[in-house]
């Protein structure tokens, strides 16, 4: 039997995402994949999945869904008040769900993107070019290449046991961005000294033009290089300066190549925080070297690694370890036969 979650309300734009089609950029396909890769990985880690397992990504207003089977889920990303069968559940922890339950994710009060991971292998739609990720612009991946619709059945696999369930949680301090660190981009030297200074000194904020392709920032326009460029490959977090002097930070669904000069690239550790920032919040760009960028990324990843180690150390703790898989099944059968 194929198990699934039925979408009762799709929310604003809920899509199936994994780590994307990085290997198919050579053919011109956008990378896609989860926007906030930290929260996405964390959700998978909480339910004992490989970190690139496909799950759901939602924007601002999350979905409502009904489960056809038992499973474990974790909700991460933007702050919200989700309920399971009308009872509040915590974010950033593994939650046991029984068949027939209704999950209402609700509105996000902080942040932009949220994630739901499902235990035992996540969402099992057929990969397209090696990825389940939905790219709305090309109509690729997910279910029929679109955002989830009312009535969609999203295939998952039943899961009845979760090692060290009670330890599978993490408390995260919300990151309010002030400084966004970047490394010099391939075209940094094409910009004037005045443009360099202005870029680092002035305050920017994210404009309303923000989506999975890119975030356009508003600020005083920069002086742009005269010379036009041949298109080059793009990278997640590249800061392009468009002809009118305003920056666009390139995101997951960006085109694989671009012809605007790239003044810098947002460091990976800060990119996830920028992605979760709403329009109107002011911040400054601060230039760092690659070593510092790397240190910050390693520190961010350490949060995940430490969490993983904690789960591992608690793997024999009650209530449910892998050995009890059969007994859970038996208990269930007894319950059903009554």
């Amino acid at each position, binding site marked *: 039997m194929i198990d699934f979650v039925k979408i009762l309300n799709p929310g604003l734009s809920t899509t199936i995402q994994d780590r994307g089609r*990085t*290997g*198919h*950029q*050579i*053919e*011109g*396909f956008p*990378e896609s994949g989860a926007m906030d890769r930290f929260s996405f990985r964390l959700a998978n880690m909480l339910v004992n999945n490989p970190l690139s397992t496909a799950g759901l990504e939602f924007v601002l207003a999350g979905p409502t869904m009904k489960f056809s089977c038992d499973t474990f889920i974790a909700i991460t990303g933007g702050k919200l008040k989700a309920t399971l069968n009308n009872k509040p559940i915590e974010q950033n922890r593994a939650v046991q769900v029984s068949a027939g339950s209704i999950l209402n994710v609700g509105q996000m009060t902080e942040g932009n993107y949220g994630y739901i991971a499902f235990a035992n292998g996540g969402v099992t739609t057929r990969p*397209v*070019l090696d990825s389940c990720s939905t790219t709305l612009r*090309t*109509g*690729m991946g997910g279910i029929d*290449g679109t955002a989830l619709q009312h009535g969609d059945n999203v295939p998952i696999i039943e899961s009845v046991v979760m090692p060290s369930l009670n330890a599978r949680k993490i408390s995260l301090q919300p990151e309010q961005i002030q400084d966004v660190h970047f*490394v010099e*981009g*391939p075209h940094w030297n094409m910009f004037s000294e005045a443009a360099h200074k202005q870029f680092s000194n002035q305050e920017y904020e994210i404009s309303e033009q923000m989506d999975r392709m890119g975030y356009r920032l508003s600020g005083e326009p920069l002086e742009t290089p005269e010379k036009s*460029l*041949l*298109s*080059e*490959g*793009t*990278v*997640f*977090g*590249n800061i392009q300066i468009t002809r009118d002097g305003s920056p666009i930070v390139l995101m997951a669904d960006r*085109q*694989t*190549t671009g012809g605007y000069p*790239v003044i810098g*690239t947002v*460091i*990976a550790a800060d990119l996830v925080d920028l992605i979760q920032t709403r329009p109107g919040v002011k911040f400054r760009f601060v230039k760092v070297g*690659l070593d510092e*960028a*790397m240190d910050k*990324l390693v520190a961010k990843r350490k949060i995940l690694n430490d969490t993983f180690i904690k789960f591992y150390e608690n793997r024999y703790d009650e209530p449910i370890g892998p050995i009890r898989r059969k007994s859970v099944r038996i208990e269930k059968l007894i319950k059903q036969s009554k």
Partner: protein
Amino acid sequence: MDYSYFQISEQALEVVFPEQIDVQENKLIQLVARKLIEEKAVGVIGVIPAYHTLTVNFDYDLTSYHDLIDEIDTLIETSDSEQSTEKTIVELPVCYDREFGPDLDDVANFASISVDELIKLHSSTDYFIYMMGFLPGFAYMGSVPENIAMPRLEVPRKKIAPGSVGIAGAQTGMYPVESPGGWRLIGRTPVKLYDVTDPVLKYKSGDYIRFKPITKDEYFAIQAQDEAGEYQLNVIKEGGESND
């Protein structure tokens, strides 16, 4: 070969060759890009070959910037000497008709030639695919003969039919999906260039495209065949390993 490296981010670098649109240079970039992917270079998770650059995404758990550039140095060295003269030409049927190519007359006037001569000129050149991008299945190709290299429209069209073939300066190409655009349209191919249900593309960067003029009757016949899944594009291999 003259090139340099630039580290774009913690997990991406770029190999930068002289800034030019040059078939030989781009062929080397394509060759190195494909070797990195096909020979599964350790830690490489994706590559983007462009006109004069090769962007490489890598996983820092598996490799480092310095290990990777050593590996790419070796690849460039071996690839530079073994570049073959083999050409893969994908022949694409195109109906150069005013219905499909509303700018046929304008381009012919621009070049001061007849429409027939324009068709002959456009279809007698093999166009090299420097890179893919922009839209799914969109190939950046060049170069058209100089006299027909008409600049793009001042005001782009809001809607261009899939399969439309156009000219924009020295570039020529096909719109694989419906899209707005400013290219001068001179014809249309009946072959579906991008299919969401089967997104494997019919051509890749490093290949050549040869446009084959067809009549309107042939256009509709091929279209029907293609829709039934019975049409195969003609792929020609020319040349081979050089003997010197």
